[in-house]
């Protein structure tokens, strides 16, 4: 019992440390990549290639004055950034990150919470992240913040449907909600991205909307709403929102690669059931997540922002029907024994 708890805690700590480092690393990557795309040097003064820039940024955040607007709803205003981090650092517990490890007469599954309802748990916890945006926008008592959070709530609900339906289609041939089974299925078959390319495209677009990334960053849309829901936030409180955004991106990327790109496994390679295999699996997963994060950045600095009505129309009139079509197709193929 105690050792089980200890093992779970160690597994959580491994994933937590990885996801904790996403935000500072992505801070640097985002700014350098943006500069590269815009043909300028970007931050290159602090350390080699500007690599220590995140440290400087953190120091700056720490020493900035922490302001609470006089008209703000203090309790909700102070709670919102902390609540933003909770789902971000919880969802990855259902992501498997390596093969089973056989050691000292027992098998350790490399997943923090190996529960029956794996994917559902991920979606359920992820769906709670909207509350921090809504609370932040409402509590700031600022019209730009309020508009940002109203947009966020409508947008997140709209795209959650398409996202969930495309995820569901992946689970049909697998016949299980466990992401570990999804990875095992892809080891014995093709990667899901090939037979389910339609579902993957829906998932990809919906993922950008769910993480409020450009071209769908309407909740913060700086050209019209200043900074949207976090207009009034400064210093570390802003940094928490910043961290939550990147951690959510990483968690959704982890879900995406696990569903469509084989998760921690590589085709044709069997990792040994030892600690080495576990480390290799973890590195594979991290590498795949890193590629996804790179695509997030690339897209952000390449595409212009959608208009809000276009966003809603895309979600309801294009993505939702497409995801239902995909679900029906996959169901037919699964029943027909093709998948």
């Amino acid at each position, binding site marked *: 019992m105690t050792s089980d708890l200890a093992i779970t805690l160690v597994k959580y700590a491994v994933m937590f440390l990885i996801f904790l480092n996403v935000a500072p690393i992505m801070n640097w990557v985002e700014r350098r990549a943006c500069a590269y795309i815009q043909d300028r040097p970007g931050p290159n003064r602090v350390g080699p290639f500007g690599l220590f820039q995140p440290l400087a940024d953190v120091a700056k955040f720490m020493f900035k004055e922490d302001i609470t607007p006089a008209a703000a*709803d203090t309790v*909700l205003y102070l709670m919102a950034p902390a609540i933003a981090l909770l789902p971000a650092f919880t969802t990855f517990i259902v992501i498997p990150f390596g093969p089973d490890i056989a050691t000292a007469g027992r098998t350790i599954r490399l997943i923090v919470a190996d*529960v*029956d*309802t794996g994917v*559902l*748990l991920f*979606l*359920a*916890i992820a*769906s*709670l992240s*909207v*509350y921090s945006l*809504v*609370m932040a*926008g*409402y509590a700031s008592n600022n019209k730009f913040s*309020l*508009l940002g*959070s*109203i*947009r966020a*709530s*409508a947008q*997140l*609900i*709209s795209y*959650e449907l398409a996202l*969930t339906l495309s995820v569901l289609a992946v689970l049909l041939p697998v016949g299980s*909600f466990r992401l570990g089974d999804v990875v095992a299925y892809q080891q014995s078959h093709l990667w899901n991205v090939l037979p389910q390319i339609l579902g993957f495209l829906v998932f990809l677009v919906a993922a950008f909307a769910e993480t409020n990334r450009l071209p769908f960053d309407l909740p913060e849309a700086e050209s019209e709403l200043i900074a949207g829901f976090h207009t009034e936030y400064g210093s570390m409180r802003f940094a928490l929102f910043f961290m939550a955004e990147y951690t959510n991106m990483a968690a959704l990327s982890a879900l995406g690669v696990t569903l469509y790109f084989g998760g921690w496994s590589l085709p044709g390679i069997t990792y040994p059931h030892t600690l080495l295999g576990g480390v290799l699996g973890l590195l594979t997963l991290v590498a795949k997540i890193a590629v996804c994060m790179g695509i997030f950045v690339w897209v952000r600095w390449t595409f212009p922002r959608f*208009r*809000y*009505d276009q966003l*809603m*129309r895309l979600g*309801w009139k294009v993505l939702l029907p497409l995801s239902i079509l995909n679900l029906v197709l996959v169901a037919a193929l699964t029943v027909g024994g093709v998948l």
Partner: protein
Amino acid sequence: MEKLTFFVFAGLALGSAIVVVVHRSPVYATLSLVLTLFSTAVLFVLLGAPFLGALQVLVYAGAIVVLFLFVIMLLNIQSEESAHGAGAQRWVALLGAVILFGMLGLGFWRGGFASVGPLTAESVSLKALAEELFSRYLLPFEIVGLLLLVAVIGATVAARRPGEDDEKSSDVPFEASPPGPLSVTGEGERFQGGTSS
């Protein structure tokens, strides 16, 4: 450990449910409702029904209550002002409460408290749930689906203003809708800018 979890989350569920009823600010009440639903979901998990718990969070806490908040924020309801005046509403609410607790009491009285003990120790498997749902309870399941479909169609029809031409207005951006970037018609079933009325 399990007992501790139960008492913490049962307490949270009850406490936040009381806040939902008595708090004067609708936003706080709605956020407390989220806490209630979340704590109830934890209790479902403790009872061996993790699927139900996940669905509770996904559907209620993650979607429906967001719509509540959306409407509250859009209408900018600051605090309850006139809710306490309505006399008829109070009697209807009282009647509803009596019926609800009467039915609950009847259930307890008929079945005895033994029937509300914990479920089996192992959790209800998804497979068993699905098989029951799609064989024994297929008709009620389909009826609920039909009911939801009717509600969606009804909301769409109610939201549609007479004489509105969908194709014509679909390319007009926001300038025709005064209350900000969104013009919400109906109960959040339909979001569309530019209703050009």
